[in-house]
């Protein structure tokens, strides 16, 4: 039997990042997929980034992941959301050429050393003494491995629903993974069902774009800190709206909607409701936006963002054709819902390894998340940790106060989630510190110490940090003196004049004065400084008050964050805890006191009691 260090099951966004990171760290890795033609597919919106998600991508990039780089090479449009707001919530979003993304990812995987890509459907996980030992496939192959990462997306007992039609499928047109769930259940992994859905796709040639509003992208923006892509694409999307007629079609045929007929009774993501649900829940709304987005350069397929539905096909047609500009649109791929198995993520450690089965990792949608970005970062964390463990190195765990990735994993492990989890900036308490623009400064050190970020790249970050310090010190040491000349400049900048000498540093705190103004008028003789360096210095100074406040909050975290709780405690035996705390702690089995403190139902007094018990070595 062939033996690998690591096997990754599933070649979606989680699986690809997991396999690449492990192979790059020297593990002999096998990546198994049900269909070799569908590597890193985007089965829903062909888009990467967005608010909260672009922060995840920036972090993945800073650590040495792949998604950001491929997205930079294959986008057809990119823009910045929340442009008018502060830097912490500004987020990039790209429309991707779906096929090109798949091709490029497949190419990278194919040419990565230590990595073998194979087609195969896993049906059984082999366990030896509560430790992973290998897998068996439906096709009859068996492989041995030391570690296993499972990233099955929507494939576990996947079931597609369109109106009253339903059939087994992982995604439309693809086989599901029918038997792996049972194998997981057999080794004690608990699973449940989630559901998600996607809108119909239409033929671009049948759309009347003149009735829609053009939504162009921006130029010269990219995700990656490292390699500047030469991609200059800027293909527009278009905006139109549903109307009274659309809502009438839905309302009068609502009994045909699977969410009403009872065919679908599992939880779906609240952030992606179908148009049916929107019309039911918000009858007072007279219109809902529909974004028409191209799926790529080599296809006429257009994605109808906002028209997600799994109504019977004839009603899908009526719904689509009721929308301005889509009167004659031809559906070339119907919308559908898919139901699948996921595992309760509280069964995992911060490394995404199973608490009960050693060397078994889970990442992506199977952990109850939604989104390509959420999947990719989990794949990276799982792949890296599987590798670090086999290499006998300390694990890689990010804290929630230092990264969105940390927020995501911590949330999965401490919250009672009732729907597929999506990232939002509002989930990060330390939002003002966890920006996409400083992800390299925050996280490159980890990427480098893991071994996935080159020395050259890391040095670039160290230099950047030094330059930011230098310019900040310069601004602190230089003064502007009052006078006619300074008065003119302030007048020109729409700012008030000064009466006594003022530090440049303090001047920059005025909302109307930008760092480029200061460089231009008061620091003329300075050598040209990189715009990214200036930007970081400016953010740190301008928002200093808020940033200090959040750093202060961080300190509060750190005391209990580092205190670990033994995994074998039965909290029912810990005296002094409230019953509800005992129940919750037994369910989540937190790894640290910090995690315990975030579980609903665990009070500060319960935490005190845990501390005392730890100290007295009673637990």
């Amino acid at each position, binding site marked *: 039997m062939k033996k690998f260090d690591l096997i990754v099951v599933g070649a979606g966004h989680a699986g690809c990042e997991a396999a690449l990171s492990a192979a790059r760290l020297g593990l002999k890795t096998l990546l198994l997929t049900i269909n070799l033609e569908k590597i890193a597919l985007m089965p829903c919106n062909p888009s990467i980034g967005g608010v909260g998600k672009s922060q995840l991508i920036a972090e993945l990039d800073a650590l040495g992941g792949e998604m950001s780089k491929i997205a930079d090479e294959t986008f057809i449009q990119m823009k910045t959301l929340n442009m008018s707001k502060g830097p912490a919530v500004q987020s990039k979003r790209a429309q991707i050429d779906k096929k090109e993304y798949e091709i490029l990812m497949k190419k990278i995987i194919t040419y990565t050393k230590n990595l073998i890509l194979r087609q195969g459907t896993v049906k059984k996980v082999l366990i030896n003494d509560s430790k992973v030992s290998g897998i068996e496939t439906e096709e009859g192959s068996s492989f041995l491995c030391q570690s296993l990462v499972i990233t099955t997306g929507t494939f576990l007992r996947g079931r597609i629903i369109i109106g009253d039609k339903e059939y087994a499928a992982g995604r439309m047109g693809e086989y599901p993974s029918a038997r792996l769930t049972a194998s997981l259940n057999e080794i004690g992994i608990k699973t449940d069902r989630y559901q998600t859905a996607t809108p119909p796709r239409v033929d671009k040639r049948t759309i009347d774009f003149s009735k829609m509003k053009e939504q162009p992208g921006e130029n010269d923006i990219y995700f990656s800190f490292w390699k500047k892509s030469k991609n200059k694409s800027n293909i527009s999307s278009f905006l139109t709206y549903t109307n009274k007629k659309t809502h009438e079609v839905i309302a009068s045929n609502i009994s045909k909607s699977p969410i009403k007929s009872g065919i679908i009774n599992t939880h779906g993501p609240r*952030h992606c409701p179908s148009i049916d649900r929107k019309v039911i829940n918000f009858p007072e709304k007279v219109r809902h936006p529909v974004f028409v987005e191209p799926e790529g350069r080599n296809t006429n397929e257009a994605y109808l963002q906002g028209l*997600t539905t799994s109504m019977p096909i004839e009603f899908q047609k009526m719904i689509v054709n009721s929308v301005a500009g889509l009167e004659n649109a031809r559906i070339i791929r119907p919308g559908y819902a898919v139901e699948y198995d996921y595992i309760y993520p509280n069964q995992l450690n911060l490394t995404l390894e199973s608490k009960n089965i050693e060397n078994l990792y889970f990442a992506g949608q199977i952990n109850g998340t939604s989104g390509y970005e959420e999947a990719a970062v989990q794949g990276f964390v799982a792949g890296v940790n599987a590798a670090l463990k086999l290499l006998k190195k300390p694990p890689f765990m990010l804290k929630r106060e230092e990264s969105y990735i940390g927020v995501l994993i911590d949330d999965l492990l401490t919250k009672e989630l009732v729907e597929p989890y999506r990232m939002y900036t509002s989930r990060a308490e330390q939002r003002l510190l966890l920006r996409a623009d400083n992800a390299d400064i925050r996280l490159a050190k980890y990427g480098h110490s893991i071994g996935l970020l080159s020395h050259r790249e890391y040095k670039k970050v160290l230099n950047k940090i030094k330059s930011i310090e230098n310019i900040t010190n310069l601004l602190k040491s230089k003064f502007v003196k009052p006078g006619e000349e300074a008065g003119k400049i302030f007048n020109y900048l729409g700012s008030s004049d000064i009466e006594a000498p003022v530090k440049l540093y303090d001047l920059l705190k005025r909302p109307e004065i930008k760092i480029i103004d200061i460089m231009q008028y008061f620091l003329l003789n300075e050598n040209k400084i990189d715009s990214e360096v200036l930007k970081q210095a400016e953010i740190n100074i301008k928002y200093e008050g808020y940033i200090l406040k959040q750093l202060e909050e961080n300190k509060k975290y750190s005391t209990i964050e580092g205190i670990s709780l033994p995994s074998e405690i039965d909290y029912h035996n810990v005296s002094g805890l409230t019953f509800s705390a005992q129940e919750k702690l037994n369910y989540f089995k937190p790894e640290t006191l910090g995690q315990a403190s975030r579980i609903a139902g665990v009070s500060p007094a319960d935490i005190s009691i845990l501390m005392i018990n730890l100290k*007295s070595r009673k637990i």
Partner: protein
Amino acid sequence: MSENDTIVALATKAGNSAINIIKLSGNKSIEITDKIFKSANKKKISKLNTYNIVYGKVYDDKNEVIDEAIVSVMKGPKSYTREDVVEINCHGGIASVNKIIDIILQKGARLAEPGEFTKRAFLNGRIDLSQAEAVIEIINAKNITSLKIAANNLTGNSRKAIKNIREQIVNIISELEVKIDFIEEDLETMPIKKIIKEIQSIEKKIIELIDNEKKSEIIKEGIKIAIVGKPNVGKSSLLNIMTGKEKSIVTHIPGTTRDVVEETLNLDGVPVIFKDTAGIRTSKNIIEQLGVKKSREEIENADIIILILDNSKKISDEDRELLKITDGMKRIILLNKIDLKNKADIEKLDIDNLKRVIKISAKEKIGINKVIKEIKKIALGEDEFLYEEKVIVNKRQRVLLENALVDIENAIKTIKMNYSEEFIITDLKSANSKIAEITGEKTGEEILNKIFSKFCIGK
């Protein structure tokens, strides 16, 4: 939860003990004490050796003396908690103790949780492991009763008010979050002008709760009422009728009440402390002289003055003197002995509202109800302040409210500086978590839940 921040608590049992000890523990306890205490020998606490004791005075922010105190310093690790510990021994009664604790809180300490000194002592290895159980019990008692406390301490209306404030904050945060996380959706959100208005209304509500609590503190201690008047005007008789006791010695010989007689009375749930004072007049009797001096002090310390005039005698210089001293204070003027023939021409006196002079007869028990009504009216304010319904009882809750108020005020500043939503939310979330702490709730998914229930999300 930070384990080396500075905590403060009253170490003695709250009540009327002669000496109260306020205890601080943590890395800032010495620094904080130096900010509020000046020793008689001008030596800073931070310069003292461990286990030294100094005498001095505690000052407030306006540099006014609150109380005399003896301060002892025990530097860590040779202290009960193994942290720097300061004990302030003061004797000014519960009101000045509260004042001192308030100032210490302002300087950066926080109120200790029940059992927290012992918990620290334990965690820092100061006390024996066998005592761990005891510590757990203390905290556990708090844990189990905390919900009860939250429920009982907050009476109907204040709980409603707090809940209402929380809902309002969560609502505004969700309005603002939607503008960030769901910027791509076509959503109608609250205009910023409305948001400012909402935040200002929250500010008002919090201030109101804090004010109510301050009033309630007066009430809890008792409203101090000094009864003044020339000798034998009927001060003690009035007090006795109101308390139903024969505590003051009532005689017809002027000057019988030599010291101040205190009596506590429950006026429909509002505790009132009457101070029956010696009459003010020049006396050669030394004991009486002391009593007179004390009376003047009592007048200055009282919340309300009851000034009694004698219907059966002409207005004297003494009466005029008392009217002058108490002018501008919250006072009730009574004309006693209306059962006797009128000789006092109060119409000639310079009193702003003669009609408010209440005519009574302590002997015949005439007009006493009017006096009680007037006391309540002045004590609780014109707005018919309903003690039972509005009050928040607990100091911890007030501190949380005060901190939340700072955040709310910051949020308004942030908006005025034209900073975008995420900065405003930073302030509001901080306020939200403090208010949630009052009722013992956790802030978590509530904002996202609010967003999904309120807005049509989903493209």
